[in-house]
């Protein structure tokens, strides 16, 4: 089956909006890493009175859909209050682009993640909000909701591929996935899960079992 990008993705890839950096940005965040493939940095200028995003820029090291989702997400966030910007979902970003191939859905997740992290950075710097990194099952699952199974383009929690998550007293995390060991996306899923768990500096180790 032909996997192709929508015309809107192509358009945003050819002529992306809001590329660059902001001089003396109020906040910024980088998500992903070159080792995992994509990396995205979002810069914000926020009106402290109204909490409206007055300027937003991005830089992307990634593929066409990575650039296009960053372009659309910054378009959607510009001029919105932080509360409204936080509510933009990765599905909404993908829909605004006329859809994304399942294997590319993770790009939209990365774009939303970078935007939300930049907002958290602003809240941390300007409101003193603590960035929560407590190892609770709820927080871990919230992160795992960002791991997309590339075959269908939906996260592993919604798909019920995440069968079990446990944390022992030494802060080792055990994850059970209902995925066959021959699945072509197994390595991608493991990399994504490990990357997500790295956000919790207190996690001692992550063990992924296939059930």
């Amino acid at each position, binding site marked *: 089956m032909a996997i192709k990008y929508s015309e809107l993705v192509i358009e945003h890839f050819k002529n992306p909006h809001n590329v660059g950096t902001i001089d003396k940005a109020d906040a910024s965040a980088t998500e992903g890493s*070159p080792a995992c493939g994509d990396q995205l940095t979002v810069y914000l200028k926020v009106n402290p009175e109204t909490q409206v995003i007055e300027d937003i820029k991005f830089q992307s090291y990634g593929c066409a859909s990575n650039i296009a989702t960053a372009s659309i997400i910054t378009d959607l966030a510009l001029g919105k209050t932080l509360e409204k910007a936080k509510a933009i979902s990765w599905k909404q970003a993908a829909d605004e682009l006329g859809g994304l191939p399942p294997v590319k859905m993770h790009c939209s997740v990365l774009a939303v993640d970078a935007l939300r992290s930049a907002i958290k950075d602003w809240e941390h710097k300007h409101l003193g909000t603590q960035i929560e990194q407590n190892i609770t099952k709820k927080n871990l699952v919230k992160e795992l909701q960002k791991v997309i199974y590339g075959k269908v383009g939906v996260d592993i929690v919604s798909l019920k591929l995440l069968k079990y998550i446990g944390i022992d007293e030494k802060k080792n995390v055990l994850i059970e996935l209902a995925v066959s060991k021959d699945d072509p996306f197994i390595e991608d899923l493991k990399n994504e899960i490990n990357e997500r768990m790295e956000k919790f500096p207190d996690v001692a180790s992550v063990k992924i079992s296939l059930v």
Partner: protein
Amino acid sequence: MSSKEVYLDSCKTSRLAPEVLDAMMPYLTDKYWYPGSFTSIGTEIAEVIENAQEIVAKSLNAKPEEITFTSGGTDANNIAIQGILQANKEKGRHFICSTISHPSVLAVFQGLEKQGFEGTYISANRDGYLNLEELKAAIRPDTILAAFTHINHILGTIQDSNAIRDILDQADHKIYLFMDSCESYTKIPINVEESGIDSLSISVHKFNGPKGMGILYVKNGTKIAPTQFGIVRLYKLKPGAINVPGIVGTAKAVEMAFSDFDKQIERYRDLQTLLYDEIIKRIPDTILNGPPIGERSPAHLNVTFRFIEGEAIMMMLDFDNIHVETGSACSSQNLQPNYILMNTGRTHEESHGSVRFTLDRFVTTEDILKTVDALEKTAKELRRRSPLGKKEQ
């Protein structure tokens, strides 16, 4: 897309030469017959096939009866690898392969491992040369077959079949050497009498021949069992329907490649050198993947453009009607970086920004210059968008 197409991906497939289509056309229309004895139409086709076999055999310094036409490179790989291992399984069930072999060969071995055969996969160095010390150590009393890729499709590395043969001959029993020559045939000279190769596979659509055609060479005296069964019209290893137009087209493509072989190789070298020289002159922060120019396949170049991603580069070039391939995880079906680049010690990032350029007889100097113009523009634009490498640039 209005501008003239530039196609630099012969490792994937290539344009059918018009001369090849002309040669095939009568056999797709009026001369639709099958080979046979005594009748005028039957013997005419039988002679056409014999002639094709002679042309191919001559190009390899093989004997005509050592040539089998197959339905592609994968078909030839399967017939040879499975056939040799099955025919010799009383003597042993061990084979040697490499971690950087072509996926179509690795797939055959993975299938055989499920049937009780056992493999050792030897590694390669950063330039893609096989670790021959590992090969030496991998040989066992039950080793039947060693199978390697003659020219690596990702790195352009040419393996020395004679050096491999010398090591295999140190064993006190016969070990067959199979070479996947899909990238090497028509790009380097192959003389089966002097190369130590017992069997090799060739894919015809990679050198401007028809799709769905392969060539299998099996040296006389090789113990090989058929893996396909049906009516044996021409070849015991490849029963069933005979693709007469495909065979005629194959012979024509081979004839064309070898009638001016040295000139073509020189042309490939010139184009490859021009492409690489212009890239490094005009685009900073690049890494050559595989051996240096002059040592690697003349029709192959693989370059990593640092700080940017390969699928984005490939698509930007596609907008300009220029077609290349990338090792980026983003463009792979399972989001994994190219295993050959990773198995030869590259980082994710290096694999990510890699672009492969492969040549065929239709690539011109103008095509190369147009490609470098587009690459320069693309690298500049994507680097403007990238958060990486800003301090270093």
